[in-house]
């Protein structure tokens, strides 16, 4: 069996076609979703891909959050639908408050594009089940608003509940608090991270690694189980 994975396109989304390719390479079926449609077309999971939706104007993710498709995504995410937000998608998820905290301008104020080492801290979410807890992976990072912040209480809570899903290794690229690269909700179905697993699925292009494939294969494992 395979799973149908919806990939949302907002105006200004960039990595939608790349995400569809990654889904396909992982053996799943990509289903394009349009921001104006409330209908999720019966998908088994949704990815909010990277890019600059609405130009990142106002704040990254702030305008997309109000699109019709997000109404349904929020509703179904609360009911357990697996949702992955990558980069801009992560920003949308924080703006909707499906995930806590916010993303701010990188502390060095520049866009940064590089191969980034991460540690998978939580290997039990819908999107990380194919990794081992503590596993180190490298995937591309590319953003200018990637600095994760939340208040101390929220951070402590995230740590205590094992909801820090990924941490930056070998240097914090943007000043994110506690080196946080990605987090999950309490149920483990909603995951957001700044780095781009969809750009690490083929040996030839990108950084030439395939460390990101696990995000998509994890899904299959979870859904079939």
């Amino acid at each position, binding site marked *: 069996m395979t799973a149908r994975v919806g990939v949302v396109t907002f*105006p*200004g989304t*960039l*990595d939608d*076609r*790349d995400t569809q*390719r*990654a889904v396909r390479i992982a053996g799943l079926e990509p289903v394009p979703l349009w921001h104006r449609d409330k209908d999720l077309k019966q998908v088994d999971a949704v990815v909010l891909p990277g*890019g*600059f939706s*609405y*130009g*990142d*104007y106002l704040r990254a993710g702030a305008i997309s959050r109000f699109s019709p498709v997000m109404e349904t995504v929020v509703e179904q995410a609360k009911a357990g639908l697996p949702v992955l937000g990558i980069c801009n998608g992560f920003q949308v998820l924080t703006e909707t408050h499906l995930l806590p905290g916010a993303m701010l301008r990188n502390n060095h104020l*520049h*866009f*940064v*594009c*590089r191969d980034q080492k991460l540690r998978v801290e939580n290997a039990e979410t819908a999107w990380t089940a194919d990794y081992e807890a503590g596993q180190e992976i490298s995937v*591309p990072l*590319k953003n*200018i608003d990637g600095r994760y912040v939340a208040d101390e209480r929220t951070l402590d809570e995230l740590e205590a509940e094992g909801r820090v899903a990924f941490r930056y290794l070998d240097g914090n690229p943007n000043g994110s608090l506690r080196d946080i690269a990605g987090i999950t909700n309490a149920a483990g179905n909603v995951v957001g991270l700044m780095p*781009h697993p*969809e*750009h690490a699925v*083929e040996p*030839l*292009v*990108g*950084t030439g690694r395939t460390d990101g494939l696990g995000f998509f294969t994890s899904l299959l494992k979870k859904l079939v189980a």
Partner: protein
Amino acid sequence: MTLDTVKHANETPDVEQPWAELGLKQDEYERIRAILGRRPTGAELAMYSVMWSEHCSYKSSKVHLRQFGEKAPENDALLVGIGENAGVVDVGQGYAVTFKVESHNHPSYIEPYQGAATGVGGIVRDILAMGARPVAVMDPLRFGAADHPDTKRVLPGVVAGIGGYGNCLGLPNIGGEVVFDPCYQGNPLVNALCIGVMKHEDIHLAKASGAGNKVVLYGARTGGDGIGGVSVLASETFDDSKPTKRPAVQVGDPFQEKLLIECTLELFREGLVEGIQDLGGAGLSCATSELASAGSGGMRVDLDRVHLRDATLSPEEILMSESQERMCAVVEPSKIDRFLEICEKWDVIATVIGEVTDGERLEIFWHGEQIVDVPPRTVAHEGPVYERPYARPEWQDALQADDANALPRPQTPEELREQVLKVISSPNQASKSWITDQYDRFVQGNTVLAQPEDSGMIRIDEETGLGVAVATDGNGRYAKLDPYAGAQLALAESYRNVAATGARPLAISNCLNFGSPEDPAVMWQFAEATRGLADGCLALGTPVTGGNVSLYNQTGETAIHPTPVVAVLGVIDDVNRRTPMAFREEGQLLYLLGDTREELGGSAWSQVIHDHLGGLPPAVDLDREKLLAEILIAASRDGMIDAAHDLSDGGLVQALTESCLRGGKGARIVVPDGLDPFVFLFSESAGRAVVSVPRSEELRFTDMCGARGLPATRIGVVDGEALEIQGQFGLSLAELRAAHEATIPSLVG
């Protein structure tokens, strides 16, 4: 104020008109009057003045650019040649590729961020207008001295602007150049290149045909930005006494452009577009007159229908506005509804502003009154042409006589080592990753190679692995010493870079950055460089598909170095066979291909160690370049080499440093018998590359070189943690890395 209609112009022939303020010369104004048989209206004057500016009409350069057509090599790959928004090349399997490099120099000096950003935006629209999906950008840049205060202002702004715009569009930035030289102080060069991919049947042209077809303006609203901006600005030298020549710059909206791209591609997919033109310099004046001029009929436009951002704009201003992110399409009446529907889907404003007529005139109306009635060809394609006087400057001989080969050289291995460190850490030779790490190189998921590789490479078909490679190069120092050879060296280097990655060079685009054409010495440099480039392209079999000319890059009497930038496009049948530059496997053999002569004129060494520019640039041998390319391509295809890196500024030691650092592997190098170690390391002889050969392939590889007559010298082996020049000195990778990577961040970080 009364509207200056055609009728009014007829009735008031003697009105004083501001032609001089608009940059026209007396005889040009007289010519407009002669064409029209009356004085132009204000709107007509606005159109002619922007379209006849140097930037839009190429009036000084045209007579020289003609050679690119006249001397064009026979080439079946060329699908669309010079004259359209960009040329189109057949790359096989039904795919076509379009690419072009353009300048945004003057706006980037005034407002670095927006100037550079809108430079990217403009070239992307040119590529889009051909029917192609833009797939990558590149940015050849030149700044003043690295430690000059103005460089600290201009460089970060330009880099942020290119990144801010390109990243937001989702176009991987896969290469470019960063060069520092005091000659660019006050005249930075910001060139931008875009590559687009389409199927043969998707090629679109900029022409309006079919009477009754609608003319649709879509994209951003028209505002008062950059009125007479780019065009006038890029057509004269800066002069503080004329503030009118420094109008408001345009501000780009990359989000709008991203919508414009997706919207336009969907319009193409549904076959809704008959003809299309982007709006860039000269805005609607350019788009309407070019579309009408290239088509079969005339055109009628109701200018008051244009969506405005500022309701107070006059018709003249609307015609001249250079507001960004706009396109103009010609659409059959039966397809208009669907066209507008797709625009609505993408939140893109679209307005029918006119239609194609069966007449021969371009007629523009403002609330029903006619304000323009012109033959479009006279605006767009039959502007003035100047045979500017040119003369070899009298200082050229003295410059060439000041031989760099006679400069004092290092006397001891210790001194040689020191000079190596100085050269590889100098701003021009140092790593540019502080800059390029601000560009997204992964987006779209097809980037096979990106900077600092010799060329950027993009996969265009996932099934077959078909790909294209592009490199851009230019060396103003060489061109200053000899503009003819300098242009050919730029071509040769770019050609070599493409071949080094395993791709077969097919065609070129170019951006010719020079000083004022009114200076006969500059005009001579221009004439020599174009002649050199045209001859070079004929010899290499790579036609010129298009390009751009940027003149008036000078402050007072001082022009920049003549700086022809050449972009070569190559094709590779299977990107799995590409050759990267990194030394990766210990024990592999390093071969130097080509001949090393004593050639230090214009070299990085002469600049860094002696602050010297004189003598002759390296000799050009295009037959040798061709042979070298054939060997590199064959070796890549047949798996005989694992790494290749072309040799250019900085010579062998620069190439070795880069390949070692990229792969994190050292190399043990033996200076060949009879070669002076200093010349071996620093000479910049053209037609060379260093390759890494697996031992199992050595015989096959050397046999091939031998049989084809290409000198191949074994110079060492990939090994250890240091670059060691035996009998001379060693430099650990850590030392090399520190020297190579710290410079740029410390200057601008």
